[in-house]
């Protein structure tokens, strides 16, 4: 702890903490213009200047650590003059368009101009013409840009796209796409969020509403298991229209959103109330043998489904959550704990990470951003083990470990072997490793022991290590053994484990429901899933129910955190709770179940209305609550390694493109709907197809038609097949041997 004074008030700061953060923690105001908490300070504005006794000149508080005994002044006359002069410079030739500007009302420049009372422009410079630019989902207006560089910093340090840069040229400096004529990025829109002025705006939102007209609804993103905090902003449409979501905002100071969260908000269900359909739904459920449902539901809905199962004695199908639960069960049988130990915050703090079995940038952008932050801020060594390289991760990872499709069990075994080389294992565990035929595994997985040595070398000095496990492993045939290996690594080394659930509430469902193995029965009611009678928030359902942005309830995200979400838009029809009431399971509201969620798996008896949903002053995540740790029996034994499977020929990997996740994101209007089968030049040769061909793709018992696109960013003989538009079961092992034939038109 460091003791020092600001304006005569004694404060404490942590070692290395900057003057600015210490001041903010203690509610002392220092104006800033370019500072943003989640990046390293870029020091471009000089608004944050302070005086330190005994030091000549001004000090930048945003990038200067507090030192023992320092006496700091934040508000002398000289400082005030300095700041006023900076503001005067910012305002030179700034267009007088607050009246129409999208940022008006929440603009840092506007606020500070008023704060420092800049009434007139005493000097001038000849203005130059700057054209506004359209960058797809983003519009850039250089005349409004104050060159604070926040956008450049988040794009590089938090997102990892590194897609924009500042083109330096004095007064004519502007922000430009990096090394490109047009912006080709993942369109997270984070640059829009952090821009303190109206220079970067959403092209869809531009000029459609003003800050003061929008109502804010705090919620949780519904698209992936990161469960990012966001706010839907709603307003009526037109003169007689209903409310609509106009845009999504986030607390960009501390958290980031991906483009799906930011631009994919209009997946609400506007179907009218239909009481006939409701009656049919009730009778269908009464006759059904099972209910099949997806994990894109709230905990409360999952709980209601469980109650329906108990009352009617029917089965519940959700293979995604069932596989996840099985994986976690095997993991717990070795780790002795019900929940994984890591979190997104742990990844951000990590200085070493292994990620296996996931194309993470598209599976869970939240994890990707956490990894980017770890790489940029802690210089983390990141090992990316996967059969396919991913250009999006290229400038974040330090080592790409390519393994053969299907050999995840072998990969995990050699990873554990390398990491636990000196660990104090017990007899049976030792026996497992002694039994391993390393030569065979190296050959089949295609991972060399030099690669493992390199990895261990690069990890040598690291203290905070994370093992991130993705869906290819969870859905793998031998997932149980892989889970036990992961738990073993956690048990005997300083790795913590993050297991990435596939959907927003896969984790919650796996803790609430007792699931049955999916069978092809005749009478299955689908709840947001396939069935003979479909109850769904998607188009074309037999009974319409509200989408996740029209419901209140909670979900459990990758951090084992129970997160509340609220109603952004009204829904006029029936909810699952209405159905439950008709079946004799009586409660007034869905959220009355929040306090009754399964406490054996770590839920707390907390009322929904007591769940908070915001980030605190210094970014502390105090949303909802974290599941209680549940201790369980640790009696699992590792199974002997099976022969590793071989995948030859043309293989497709079912993996969604950037910003698409499921049928809900597919319904939104702004997100790009890229539905090509994408493959490398090598794949073209192997499959004997070429760019632009219409092909028929068959795997398992599924047949679909797609256009093939040659993708110069891909390598190898695996092609990428999107699933968001065809709804392949989420639980499938995502690599498939497939037959590809060209369709002659």
């Amino acid at each position, binding site marked *: 702890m460091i003791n020092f004074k600001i304006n005569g008030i004694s404060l404490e700061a942590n070692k290395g903490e900057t003057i600015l953060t210490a001041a903010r923690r203690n509610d002392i105001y220092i104006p800033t213009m370019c500072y943003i908490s989640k990046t390293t300070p870029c020091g471009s504005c000089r608004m944050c200047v302070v005086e330190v006794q005994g030091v000549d000149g001004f000090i930048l508080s945003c990038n200067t650590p507090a030192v023992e005994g320092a006496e700091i002044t934040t508000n002398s006359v000289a400082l005030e003059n300095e700041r006023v002069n900076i503001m005067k410079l910012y305002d030179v030739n700034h267009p007088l368009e607050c*009246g129409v500007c999208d940022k008006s009302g929440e603009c840092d420049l506007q606020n500070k101009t008023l704060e420092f009372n800049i009434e*007139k*422009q005493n000097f*001038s410079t000849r203005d130059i013409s700057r054209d506004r630019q359209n960058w797809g989902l983003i519009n850039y207006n250089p005349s409004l840009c104050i060159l604070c560089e926040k956008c450049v910093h988040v794009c590089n340090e938090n997102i990892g796209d590194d897609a924009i840069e500042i083109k330096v040229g004095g007064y004519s400096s502007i922000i430009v796409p990096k090394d490109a004529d047009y912006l080709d990025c993942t369109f997270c829109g984070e640059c829009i969020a952090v821009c303190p002025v109206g220079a970067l705006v959403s092209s869809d939102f531009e000029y459609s509403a003003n800050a*003061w007209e929008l109502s804010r609804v705090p919620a949780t993103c519904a698209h992936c298991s990161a469960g990012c905090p966001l706010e839907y902003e709603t307003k009526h449409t037109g003169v007689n229209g209903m409310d609509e979501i106009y845009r999504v905002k986030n607390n960009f100071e501390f958290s980031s959103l991906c483009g799906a969260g930011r631009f994919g908000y209009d997946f609400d269900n506007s179907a009218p109330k239909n009481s006939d359909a409701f009656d049919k739904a009730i009778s269908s459920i009464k006759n059904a043998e099972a209910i099949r449902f997806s994990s894109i539901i709230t905990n409360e809905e999952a709980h209601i489904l469980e109650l329906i199962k108990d009352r009617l004695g029917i089965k519940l199908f959700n293979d995604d959550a069932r596989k996840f639960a099985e994986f976690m069960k095997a993991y717990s049988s070795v780790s002795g704990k019900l929940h994984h130990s890591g979190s997104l915050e742990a990844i951000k703090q990590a200085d070493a990470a292994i990620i296996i079995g996931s194309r993470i940038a598209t599976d869970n952008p939240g994890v990707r951003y956490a990894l980017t932050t770890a790489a940029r801020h802690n210089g983390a060594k990141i090992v990316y083990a996967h059969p396919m390289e991913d250009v999006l991760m290229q400038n974040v990872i330090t080592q790409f470990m390519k393994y053969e499709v299907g050999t995840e069990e072998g990969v995990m075994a050699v990873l554990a072997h390398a990491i636990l080389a000196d660990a104090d294992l017990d007899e049976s565990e030792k026996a497992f490793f002694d039994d391993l035929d390393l030569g065979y595994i190296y050959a089949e997985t295609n991972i060399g022991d030099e690669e493992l040595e390199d990895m261990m070398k690069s990890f040598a000095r690291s203290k905070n290590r994370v093992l991130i496990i993705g869906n290819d492993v969870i859905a793998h045939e031998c997932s149980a053994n892989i889970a036990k290996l992961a738990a073993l690594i956690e048990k005997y080394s300083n790795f913590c484990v993050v297991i990435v659930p596939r959907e927003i509430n896969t984790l919650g469902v796996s803790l609430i429901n007792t699931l049955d193995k999916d069978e092809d029965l005749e009478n299955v009611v689908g709840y947001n899933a396939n069935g003979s009678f479909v109850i769904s928030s998607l188009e074309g359902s037999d009974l319409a129910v509200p989408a996740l942005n029209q419901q209140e309830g909670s979900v459990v995200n990758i951090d084992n955190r129970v997160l509340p979400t609220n109603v952004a838009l009204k829904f006029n029809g029936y909810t699952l709770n209405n159905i439950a009431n008709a079946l004799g399971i009586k409660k007034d509201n869905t959220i009355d179940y929040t306090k009754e969620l399964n406490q054996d798996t770590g839920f707390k008896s907390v009322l929904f209305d007591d769940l908070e949903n915001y980030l605190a002053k210094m970014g502390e995540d105090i949303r909802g609550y974290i599941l209680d740790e549940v201790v369980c029996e640790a009696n699992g034994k590792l199974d002997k390694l099976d022969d590793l499977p071989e995948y030859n020929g043309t293989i497709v990997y079912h993996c969604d493109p950037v910003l698409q996740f499921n049928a809900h994101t597919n319904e939104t209007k702004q997100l790009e709907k890229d539905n090509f089968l994408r493959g490398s030049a090598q794949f073209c040769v192997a499959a004997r197809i070429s760019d632009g061909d219409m092909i028929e793709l068959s795997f398992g018992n599924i047949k679909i038609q797609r256009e093939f696109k040659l993708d110069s960013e891909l390598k190898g003989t695996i092609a990428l097949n999107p699933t968001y538009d065809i709804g392949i079961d989420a639980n499938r092992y995502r690599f498939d041997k497939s037959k590809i034939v060209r369709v002659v038109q």
Partner: protein
Amino acid sequence: MKNEQFNDRNISNDYFKVDIADYPTTDWGKFKCALDRTFKLELLVGLWVVLREMFKFNTHTVKYPEEKMPIGPRYRAVHEMKRLWESDTERCIGCGLCEKICISNCIRIDTKIDENSRKEVSEYSINLGRCIFCGYCAEVCPELAIVHGGEYENASDQREHFVMYEDMLTPLDKMKAGTQSEFEGFGAITPHEEERVKKTPLAY
């Protein structure tokens, strides 16, 4: 300014008190009063005065609707939307402040980006059935776009009675003729405002 004239709440000497009997309090008194009113035909006394004056053609009221009183510039009746003198374009920039401030929630506006990347007001309506003519919208408008006009004859057979943007906008021929009138009520520009504007030095 001194406040004395407002603080002195004594009525002036020009006023005199009318001698009116107190209301009866006893049951008998009330009964007597009712009898008086019924049988002394007090009602006809008043009626007679009216009739007498009518036959003498000596009316003191305005003969509405043939005759109408001129109304003051600050009168707050049905809204008008002004245009810019220089270019004839609409003054409204779609800031939505009028919609926000309206206490009876009767203004609804919608904006969008137009082909020239400018903000365009795509819809604007006021529900006069709800409007209480408080003048807040005119006061808050940063562009002196929405103002109150003098049109007060807006009786309607519907509770909902809307005026749209086009109805309120100054017609272009009026602009050509230069007869658009400025509103002088609350929120209006003060006289000699132009002299107070300081220009940015352009010495480069």
